C-alpha cells in the first residue's frame, strides 16, 4: 500500500493502530490476571486488575477523540474511513472486554475467602485460555489486516460457547450437590459468562477486521454455540 501524500495523516493512522494494540495488550493482561486472581484467590492481583481498567477506559477515550478529530479534519475515505471506523468499534469492544475482566476480578475478590475444590477451575481455565487466544489472534488479525485469521477467530467462537455450556452444566451440578457451593458457583458462573461475552467481543472485532479488509460485512449468520439460555437441568 502506498503511503499517504500527507505524512502526518499516515502517522495519525499508525498512532491509532499503536493505541489499539496497546489497549488490546492491556485487555489481554486484565483477562489473564483476573483469572489468575480467581484461581489463586489473590485479592491484591484482583485489585490490580480493577485498577488497570482505568487505563483501558482512558485509552478508549483517547482513541475515540482521535477518531472524531480525524473524521473532522481528514475526512477519511474508503479504506481510511473503514480504518478509523474499525478503530472506533474495536476500541469499544476492547473497553467492554476490560469491563468484563474487571467484573471477573471483582468476583475473584468476593470469593477469595471461600474454599473451593480444585477441579472446579479446570473448565474455566480452558475457557480463559481459549478466549485469550481468540483475543490475541483477532488483535494480530487487525494488526496484519489478516481476514483469514479473523475469519477463523469468528468461526471458533462456537467452541468457547460449547465450553461455556459444559462449565455451566458443571457448576449447576456442583450447586445441586452441595447448596453451600451456591454462592461460589454463582460468582464463577458469572465469571464464565463474562469470558463467554469476551469471546463474543473478540468475534465482533473479527467481523470489524473482515469489514476493514474487504469493505463488506461477513454475510452468514455467526454460528452460535451458547445454548444455556434454553438449558434447564431438572432436579432428579
Amino acid at each position, binding site marked *: 500500500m502506498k503511503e499517504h501524500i500527507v505524512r502526518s495523516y499516515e502517522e495519525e493512522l499508525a498512532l491509532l493502530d499503536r493505541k489499539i494494540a496497546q489497549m488490546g495488550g492491556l485487555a489481554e493482561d486484565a483477562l489473564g490476571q483476573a483469572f489468575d486472581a480467581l484461581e489463586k484467590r489473590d485479592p491484591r492481583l484482583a485489585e490490580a486488575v480493577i485498577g488497570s481498567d482505568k487505563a483501558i477506559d482512558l485509552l478508549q477515550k483517547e482513541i475515540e477523540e482521535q477518531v472524531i478529530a480525524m473524521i473532522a479534519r481528514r475526512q477519511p*475515505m*474508503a479504506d481510511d474511513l473503514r480504518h478509523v471506523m474499525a478503530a472506533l468499534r474495536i476500541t469499544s469492544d476492547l473497553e467492554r472486554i476490560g469491563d468484563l475482566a474487571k467484573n471477573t476480578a471483582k468476583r475473584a475478590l468476593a470469593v477469595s475467602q471461600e474454599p473451593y475444590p480444585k477441579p472446579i477451575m479446570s473448565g474455566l481455565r480452558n475457557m480463559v485460555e481459549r478466549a485469550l487466544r481468540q483475543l490475541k489472534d483477532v488483535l494480530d488479525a487487525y494488526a496484519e489486516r489478516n481476514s483469514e485469521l479473523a475469519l477463523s477467530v469468528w468461526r471458533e467462537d462456537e467452541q468457547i460457547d460449547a465450553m461455556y455450556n459444559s462449565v455451566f452444566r458443571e457448576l449447576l451440578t456442583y450447586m445441586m450437590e452441595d447448596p453451600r457451593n451456591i454462592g461460589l458457583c454463582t460468582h464463577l458462573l458469572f465469571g464464565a459468562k463474562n469470558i463467554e461475552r469476551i469471546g463474543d467481543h473478540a468475534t465482533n472485532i473479527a467481523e470489524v477486521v473482515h469489514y476493514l479488509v474487504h469493505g463488506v460485512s461477513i454475510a452468514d449468520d455467526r454460528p452460535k454455540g451458547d445454548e444455556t439460555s434454553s438449558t434447564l437441568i431438572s432436579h432428579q
Partner: protein
Amino acid sequence: MVVTGAADEGSRMNEQVRTGDIAGAAVSALPRGAGPAVTAKVRARHVDVFYGDKQALKDVSVDIPARAVTAFIGPSGCGKSTFLRCINRMNDTIPTSRVSGQITIDGEDIYDPRLDVVQLRARVGMVFQKPNPFPKSIYENVAYGPRIHGLARNKPELDGIVMSSLEKAGLLKEVRDRLGDSGTSLSGGQQQRLCIARAIAVSPEVILMDEPCSALDPIATARIEELIDELRENYCIIMVTHSMQQAARVSQRTAFFHLGELIEQGDTTDIFTNPRNRQTQDYITGRYG
C-alpha cells in the same frame, strides 16, 4: 471492473476477497451481453478521444442514469472533462480533436452526422468551472437561450420562461427587483446559479457541470449543491469535480478516471467506502502519485 448490469452488482456483493485480476479487469470494456442499466440516459461505448496524436480518452464505456447525479472524479488531465465535453460535443470546437466510439442519449447517437450540434447543445446544458454570465442584464442572460431557439412566441411567454428558470435555480428571490442589472454585478455564487438558470431555460434533458463550485466559497458551494440535489429530480446531471467530498455529498453514481481510462464506476457510497480498484482507492484516500 466496469459494473453496469444487475448481474454484476450481485456477483460483486458476494465477493469477499480482493484479488489482483479484479483490478486488472477494471480497464476492460463492458462485458459482452451485459444488460444496459434500467434507466440509462446517456450511454457511451468504447469512446476514444484524440487531440492530434495524443490520446486523451481510451475505450470509455459507461451508462449514466437519468434523474440522478453522476460525478466524474480523477486527477487533473485524467480525461474526465474531456469526456464531459464529448457529451455535448464541445470538443468539436477544438480543431485537432477526434472522437471515436459511440455516445447515445436516449438511444440516439449524438455523433450521427445528421444530428445538429446546435440542437444537441440545447438538449445538453452545460455549466462551467468559472461562472461566465454574459455581460448583459440578468434577464437577457436567461432569455438568450430561449430566444435563439425560438422557445417563446411572445414576450409574456419569454418572461414566464425567464422567471421559472430563475425560480428553479433558486435565484428569483434575490434578483426579482433587479432583472435589468448586469449579470456580472452578482456575487460569484449568484453568477453560477444564473448560469444554471441560463442552462435550464432551454429545457435540457442532461446538464453537464464542469467543476461548478471550484471558484466559490463554502456557503455558495452549499447553495449550489442543494440546487443540484433539487434539480436531480428532473434532469440527468453529470458533474466533474476535484473535490471528492463534493462528489460524495452530491452524487449518486461516481466514476473514477485515470490517465484517460475509466478505472471504476459505481454507487457513490460503494466507491467512497469500498472501492474495488487499487488506483481508485489510492486516489480517494490521498495516496495518489
